[in-house]
């Protein structure tokens, strides 16, 4: 295989880890919305950490090999779709990171409540359903889908 083909393999691997990790986290988050027991939230938010690892690794692979591909395929770093994809990817990570920090505080509360009798709590329920946290996380996911669309359509290329 050529250098271009190898770079594409690693770039696409990054995209799979990134978008697949997002789907993984969303699946568990949607189930957490229907649970009240703190220990259930601890388990589900704990499993979401697997997605965080995949998303972090995927972002790195997609970004590094994507930039290398731009050079290898003779695109320009100043092309509109390249800049839009980079900005959107950074924005997606910023939103996801902010949502993740809020979720970590929710997980800390859930761990405390689980250790103190594991009884449902209005505060925990409110935090799991917090519209800002959900907006940040799902907004991040939508931006990742937008990055995929930019990669495929390459508007202006």
């Amino acid at each position, binding site marked *: *295989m050529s250098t*271009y*083909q*190898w770079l*594409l*393999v690693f*770039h*696409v*691997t990054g*995209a*799979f880890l*990134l*978008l*697949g*990790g*997002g*789907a*993984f986290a969303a*699946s*568990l988050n949607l*189930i957490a919305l229907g*649970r009240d027991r703190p*220990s*259930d939230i601890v*388990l*589900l938010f704990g*499993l979401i950490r*697997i*997605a965080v690892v995949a998303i972090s690794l995927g972002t790195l692979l997609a970004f590094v090999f994507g930039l290398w591909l731009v050079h290898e*395929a003779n695109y320009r770093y100043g092309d509109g779709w390249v800049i839009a994809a980079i900005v959107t990817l950074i924005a997606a990570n910023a939103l996801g990171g902010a949502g993740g920090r809020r979720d970590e505080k929710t997980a800390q509360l859930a761990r405390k409540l689980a250790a103190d009798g594991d009884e449902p709590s209005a505060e925990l329920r409110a935090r799991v359903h917090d519209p800002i946290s959900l907006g940040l996380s799902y907004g991040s996911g939508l931006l990742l*889908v937008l990055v*995929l*669309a930019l990669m*495929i*359509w390459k508007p202006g290329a």
Partner: protein
Amino acid sequence: MLALIRPDAWNLPLFLHVLGATVLFGTVGVVAVAGFAIRRGTDHQLLLARVAQRTYMLGVIPAYIVMRVGAQWIDGKEFPNGNEPGWVGVGFLVSDAGALLLVVVGILLAVRRERILLAVPLLTGLYVLALGVAWVSMSGKP
């Protein structure tokens, strides 16, 4: 370099194919992880079984359909005469054998609703690896 020059009409089916495949990868991963987590003797067996069942029904099946429809759509545009290269064959092998495997997983999840059988994480883990082989083959086009 030919891969860089793609008619606009191929973009939507390719987008659907890749989006479906990535979501399929993530949701099959959830079923596998839930199945392996249950083996660790957790007291949340019913919750993990529900995670696997709901993710299978609401994530895996729709994602598979989007991936497979996108694959057939773009295959018809890119190779209208059916002379597909080997890397396309790898993709169809993984998707079609995967459909059979996912049917088996669905039956196993329906048969034992309170607990995930060991075969479920083993089969879904195998499918996650097969999806990896497919995306390497389809993106590298060796």
